[in-house]
Structure formats: structure tokens, C-alpha cells
């Protein structure tokens, strides 16, 4: 049963960066429909900076906890908009909850659970408000439920749950973030932040398949 070490987190961050860059146009198109058309650009820029911070942290032999804190900080100081502080705070809070050189499924569930709590506190959004919380919360639930499964498998379940949560945003009426300005006209569009959250969880699952021996 593999554990998440700094090398694995680095691969995850690179995978997330690549995924966000590959889906930049799609994220921006979703944000153009119900927001201001910058989510893809914001995240591509932010994850590129976060990747650099991640490499520095990895090179310095940092443990996963402080590593995520550094990466979260890089996101905060390079994304801008709503997504920067939200994603950055999630990773910083998760990092603070991680101790030691590795984390198993249960530890990751606890850390990302803490991140989710911080996200909900900071943004005030709950499940059903058509935000990244709609993808994040089910993913954390899945991780928690998979507490004794191997990490890679648990991450796959989490990614599946995040994607399902992402798709669940389409029929919703937005109550938080920029899409809330549209009222009923936000219905029928998938939330960009939930979409990028699903990408990040899928990146975790895929990176673990390659990096974590089972």
C-alpha cells in the first residue's frame, strides 16, 4: 500500500499543471459562459508558478506538508481572482495537517478534509452552490470512505467522485462566485472551478498510478 511522499506530490503538481494547461481553453470557455473568461488563464499561470515552487521545495528535500504549504503560497501569489486564494488556502491548510515524510490514504483524507473546511470557511460556499466545493466535497468524502484502500485506488475513487460532482453543477443555479450574478441564467452550464478541481483530483489519481508502487 503506497504512501504519498514528496516525490509523488511533485509528480502530482506537475500532472495538475499539465492538465490545467491542456484544458486552459475549456476552463476559460466555461468561465466565459457564466463568469469573466479568465479561469483557464488564471490557473495555467498559477500552476506554472506553483510547479516552480514545487521543484524548489522538492530540491530542498521538504516533506509533503511544508511542500504543499509552499505550493499553496505560490498559487496565492500568482493566480489572482477568486481561484488563487481558494486553491492556495486549500493546499496551505492541507499541508499544515500533514506530518512526516509520507502520508497514507487516511492522512491525505484528513489533510484534504481540513483544506475543504478552510475552503468552505473562506468562500462561504456549500455543496449545491455551484462552485469548486461541489467537486471537492465528494472527492474528500470518497477519500474518507476509502480510508483503508491503497492510495492510488482511493485517489481514483476520489477523482471519479470529483468528476461526478463537477457534472452535478450543470443543472444548478449558482449562489456563490461570479456565476451567481446570472441567477437562473447560470443553470445549464458546468462550473469552471468544479471542473478544474476535478482535473486536479484526476491528476492525483493518474500520477499515483505511475509513482506509487502498490
Amino acid at each position: 500500500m503506497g504512501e504519498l511522499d514528496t516525490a509523488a506530490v511533485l509528480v502530482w503538481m506537475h500532472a495538475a499543471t499539465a492538465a490545467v494547461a491542456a484544458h486552459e481553453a475549456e476552463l476559460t470557455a466555461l468561465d466565459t459562459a457564466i463568469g469573466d473568461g479568465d479561469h483557464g488563464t488564471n490557473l495555467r499561470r498559477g500552476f506554472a508558478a506553483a510547479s516552480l515552487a514545487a521543484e524548489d521545495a522538492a530540491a530542498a528535500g521538504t516533506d509533503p506538508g511544508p511542500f504543499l504549504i509552499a505550493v499553496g503560497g505560490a498559487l496565492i501569489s500568482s493566480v489572482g481572482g477568486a481561484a488563487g486564494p481558494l486553491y492556495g488556502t486549500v493546499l496551505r491548510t492541507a499541508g499544515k495537517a500533514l506530518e512526516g515524510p509520507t502520508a497514507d490514504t487516511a492522512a491525505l483524507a484528513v489533510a484534504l478534509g481540513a483544506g475543504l473546511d478552510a475552503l468552505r470557511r473562506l468562500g462561504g460556499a456549500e455543496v449545491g452552490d455551484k462552485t469548486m466545493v461541489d467537486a471537492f466535497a465528494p472527492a474528500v468524502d470518497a477519500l474518507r470512505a476509502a480510508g483503508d484502500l491503497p492510495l492510488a485506488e482511493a485517489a481514483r475513487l476520489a477523482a471519479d467522485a470529483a468528476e461526478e460532482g463537477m457534472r452535478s453543477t450543470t443543472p444548478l443555479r449558482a449562489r456563490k462566485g461570479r456565476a451567481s450574478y446570472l441567477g437562473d441564467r447560470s443553470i445549464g452550464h458546468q462550473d469552471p472551478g468544479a471542473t478544474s478541481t476535478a482535473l486536479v483530483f484526476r491528476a492525483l489519481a493518474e500520477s499515483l498510478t505511475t509513482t506509487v508502487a502498490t
Partner: protein
Amino acid sequence: MKKFLNAPETAVDDALAGLAAAHPELAVDRALRVVARASGARPGKVGLVSGGGSGHEPLHTGFVGPGMLDAACAGEIFSSPTPDRILAATRAAAAGAGVVHIVKNYTGDNLNFDMAAELAREEGIEVAKVTVADDVAVEDAGTAGRRGTGAALIVEKTAGARAEEGADLAAVVAVARQAAESSRSYAVALAAGTVPTTGRPSFELPDGLVESGVGIHGEPGRARAPLRPARDLAAAIADAVLADLPRRNEPVIALVNGLGATPLMELYVVYGHVAEELAHRGIAIARNLVGTYVTSLDTAGVSLTLCRADPALLRLWDAPVRTPALRWG
């Protein structure tokens, strides 16, 4: 997409370079995208800082100078600047008497300004936040709340004047809050602007339709409506603003504002009808401003902001101001 730019990615930096070249009275930190008065912070004066995504020029960078802001911070197009940059602007404005953050109410702006305020406080800078949330086109309950738009100008102008005359932090905040809470706005667009990185208009608006209740970030509006004569559009806009304007027996400051690609001729046509409309309802316009101040890239559109103003606020509105985009007195 056709714009006078070098590349979508360099638009904000290139515009700041031009601003710096044109205005030696401003200190432009191009790395941090912070624009401050070149004269520095005046010891003992309350500092005024605003900022937000770019694409709304002259807001906020064009409002830095005596009688208005001390520093402004420019984010990417339509994206709030990051906390470290807002912190840098806050430092530039801090002169021992505290700093006011004037923040347009968007999730991103709130979060980034709040984080910056936290960092500034850790450095011993007293920071107070005033939120501008004037756009009546959006709901105000259980959501992100009303957007901040044209009222930012009125808040920055009046609070800037109060700070300039040496008032303390609480007094400056009180004026800023009064102006913010007394202001409401509504905007309609004939054509959406184009975010450079996407290269296409934020929304497509068929011939003969207007987008009613648009935001200043290419957010689509409340509804699409047939294009009507300016008289009718102006009446509808005034209706929307007045429905939610505080009902005090005070005259108003009226701002008829172009969203970026609307000629002055059309703005004056709209102003004329707004003035008629308010006259019919017995609301006096004590001051007006007609021009292109709070924009949304090259959006063809117009917004109306009304602010109930008592004599104290009018006095501050009239006070001298010397900035690139607003100067009088």
C-alpha cells in the same frame, strides 16, 4: 480580435509602461504593477488604496493622485491582483495613519484584499476595508452579493478628499462607507468587449438586442431586451437604479459612464434623458459626471450611477483632485 496591443499576455504591462511614461507624477512599479504618487505618502495622512482586475481603465490607476488614491494595484485583465501586490500598494500608501482598502465586491477581490490586509497588519499597518457593492442588477442575498462598479469612482473621490484634508482613519472610512452605501448602479451593453487572451467577445449579442444588467467583466446581464430608443433605455436604467437607491431626501451625484467603446455623443444623449427622468420624479441632480471612467475593455455600453449626497459629501466631491483621469478644483 483587433486591438492596439503587442500580445494578450503583455497588455497590462505595456499599458502600465505607457502610463508611467505619460505621468511622471506617478511612481509605477512595473514588476508589482503598483501605481503610487511619485511624491510618496504624506506623513500622517490616511492612505487610500484600491485595485482590482485590469480592463477597467482609468479605474483605478488613473485615479491616483492628490485628492484621490495614494496607490492602486492592477491585476491581470479581470482578475484581482494577488495579496503580495496589494500589500506592496498598501505599504506605498502607509504613512502612519492607517490605510483604507476600497474593494469592489467580487469574491476574488475580497479574498485577495483580505489576505493582503492580514499581511499588512502583521507588519503593523492598520488597514480598514470599505466594500463597494452598487450594481443593482444582481441579487444581494445568499450570493456573492452586489457587484462593485461605477460607485468606486465616487467613493475614491470623496474619501480621497477627506483623507487629503487630514481626517483620521475612522473619518475617512465613514465617508467612504457613506458614499458606497448611498450609491447604486446599473449598466446595459450593445456589444460585449473582448478579453485579449480569449480573442472573442465575452458574449454574442444579436442585432437589435441589448444586454441589460451587464457587469464590468463581460458577465452577461439579467436579460436580453430589444434595442429601444435612448430615451426608453435611459428611463429603464434610471428605474432600475432608483428602485434600489436609498430613499433619502437628498440630491444625487449622477455618473453616466461609458463602458469603453461608447462615444461621448451617445453618453450625452443618455445623460439628457436621465436628467429628464429624474426631474420628473423630483430628484435633483446636484452634480454630474459624463464620460468614460469605469470600463470593461471595449464594451459598447453605458452605466448609470446615482449617489445620494448630503452637503458634506458634495463638498468632498467638489474638492480639488489631480489625477490622470479626474482633475478639477
